[in-house]
């Protein structure tokens, strides 16, 4: 909305005031995250500005540390498996939820979104007792199952949103032309909802990749993930290695975010919702 040429001085002041305010808020959103990137190149042992010099020593430290590299490996294994499992389960149930009404649908939908809403400490402590009892605590499988439970709401929400814009008559058209339901799914439905499925998958990945509270309770040292190791680091060994890890994780986040945004826009373009 451009400023009207006939705007009064007061309106002009408001116009600029709001823009300045918004710019400040946006800077406030991004800058506090970004400050950690330059400091990861510090040559000092403390996480304070100004930096005495520039070096790569903390990245070297990261890659030469067994604990850090193990936790990086764990993070990718756990987040990868979580993504596969959560995407499969979440996509199926999103299709089911949009297909027809069935008894208790409201409650079931409510339950599926619950992991996102229930305070994470409650989820983590509950899973911790249950997994300790079943022998899943301190295993990779336990971490994957717990993270999948946390990640599925995001898949369900994104895929459901995509499906709402999907014209179901196409399925009927496909079926009336003699295609099997499976063929219809892969040839008609999936290509159209794929952007939603992929962004759901990315959400699932990032949920697991960033998760720390569940890891705090159920991960043993063999299952430490990057955030879990960072948590220990902030408490135990507060040095710029943490900043180096954070910087790398921000790069991953930005890459994922940009992919999701591109997918979303492609999806909207396909469905002709561009404003």
């Amino acid at each position, binding site marked *: *909305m451009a400023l009207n040429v006939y705007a009064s001085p007061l309106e002009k002041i*408001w116009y600029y005031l*709001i823009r300045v305010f918004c710019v400040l*808020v*946006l800077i*406030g*959103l*991004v800058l*506090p*995250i970004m400050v*950690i990137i330059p400091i990861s190149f510090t040559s000092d042992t403390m996480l*304070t*500005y100004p930096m005495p010099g520039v070096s790569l020593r903390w990245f070297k430290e990261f890659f030469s540390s067994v604990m850090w590299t193990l936790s990086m490996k764990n993070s990718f294994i756990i987040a990868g498996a979580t993504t596969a499992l959560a995407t499969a*389960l*979440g996509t*199926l*149930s999103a299709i*089911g939820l949009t*297909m*027809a009404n069935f008894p208790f649908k409201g409650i079931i939908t*409510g*339950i*599926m*979104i*619950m*992991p996102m*809403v*229930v*305070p*994470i*400490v*409650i989820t983590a*402590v*509950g899973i*911790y*007792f*249950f997994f300790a009892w079943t022998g899943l605590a301190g295993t990779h499988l336990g971490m994957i199952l717990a993270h*999948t*439970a946390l990640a599925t709401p*995001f898949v*369900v*929400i*994104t895929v*459901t949103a995509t499906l709402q814009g999907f014209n179901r008559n196409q399925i009927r058209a496909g079926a009336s032309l003699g295609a099997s339901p499976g063929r219809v799914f892969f040839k008609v439905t999936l290509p159209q909802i794929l952007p939603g499925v992929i*962004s759901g998958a990315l959400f699932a990945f*990032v949920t697991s990749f*960033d998760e*720390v*509270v569940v890891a705090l*309770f159920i991960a043993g040292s063999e299952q430490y993930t*990057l955030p879990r190791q960072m*948590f220990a680091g902030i408490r135990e060994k507060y040095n710029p290695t943490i900043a180096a890890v*954070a910087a790398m*994780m*921000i790069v991953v*986040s930005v890459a*994922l*975010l940009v992919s999701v*945004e591109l997918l979303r*826009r492609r999806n909207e373009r396909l469905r002709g919702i561009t404003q």
Partner: protein
Amino acid sequence: MNPSYQKLDAAEGLSLKVRLRRAERKRKIKAAGLVAPLFFFLLTTFIIPILMLLYRAIDNPEIMAVMPRTAQAIQKWDGAALPDEPVFAALADDLRQARKDRTVGMAGKRLNYDITGFRTLVLNTARKVSRMKTEPASYREKIIGMDKRWGELLYWSAVKRAAAPFTDFYILSALDLKRDSGGHIVRVPAERALYLKVLFRTLWMSLIVTLCCLILGYPVAWLLATLPVRISNLLMILVLLPFWTSLLVRTASWIIVLQKEGIINEILTRLNLTSAPLQLVFNRFGVYVAMTHILLPFMILPLYSVMKNISPSYMRAAVSLGANPVVAFWKVYVPQSLPGISAGCLLVYILAIGYYITPALIGGPKDQMLSYFIAFFTNNTINWGMASGLAVLLLGATILLYTVFNRFIGIDRLRMG
């Protein structure tokens, strides 16, 4: 329609209505079948664990397991006068056995929740009872002789309460209440009352954070909704970035920004605005700043999605009819954005009351919310009943808000960018 189909239907003698209903039912079953895997997955990895956790808030297994005879004998006790000889004899038997099994500490710990000092009483009595060489004439006199506290009703009523299969002790404690020796619910003394205050603090801090998010987020959402799509999409990435970066990364960043020799203090001292560095972290201020930052995207997104659909022509109409732009904005635009405001506020509030990591790493002891105490009781004092009692409180508040959210706004309208 193909004539052969018609023939087939006629042969089966089914009306179109019945066939439709059948197809519909088949579709319903198929839909439910597709939802089932995730439902059962969440049932086992999420719902059941949480229900089991909540069960611990009323579960009362220690005394029944460690002191079964006493637990049974004391059921018949009316609480008016001291228990009879059989109860004392059962106590002696149980303590002797428990000491042998090394479980007496468990019973002592449970009883100590109710009355401080009970643990030592149980341990000492167990030791003395085990040392007895001969059967005494009266266990009652003997045990009261060991420690006169066994002659007080207060202690026995605590044993009786702890010997029942279920207890309301933890949930009452979470509300700063307890039962006195007569079984009446009373407030705990002021120097032990904490959790109502923490609950209130949790709700209060979340409210402040929600308001901060609304104040900061509303103009931004408005701007994003009114700018051309190309620009607003770009800015949207800035809004979403905090949402996509790890909570831990953000928290670590805020420590760097806010600490004594951090960036803010550095700037303030350079500009001569302060003589000494300000305390910005490990206090309430730091927690508010960090939480607002983390939750702001959850406010902006619902606001934006509602505002995008508000047509600018209403505002134009109001202004052209002579309304002051500010008044027009307040009377015309804001009411239309109310659904977005309520969705954003509820979402932020629900998420805020469950926060743990941020206050734990950035706050001081006066800034800890309920989640912290749940983790504290789970990890540090291993009082799992108490952890569950507080979890009931927190989960109750969350579910209440979630139901409101679901009823008025609908979770299916939630968008993740």
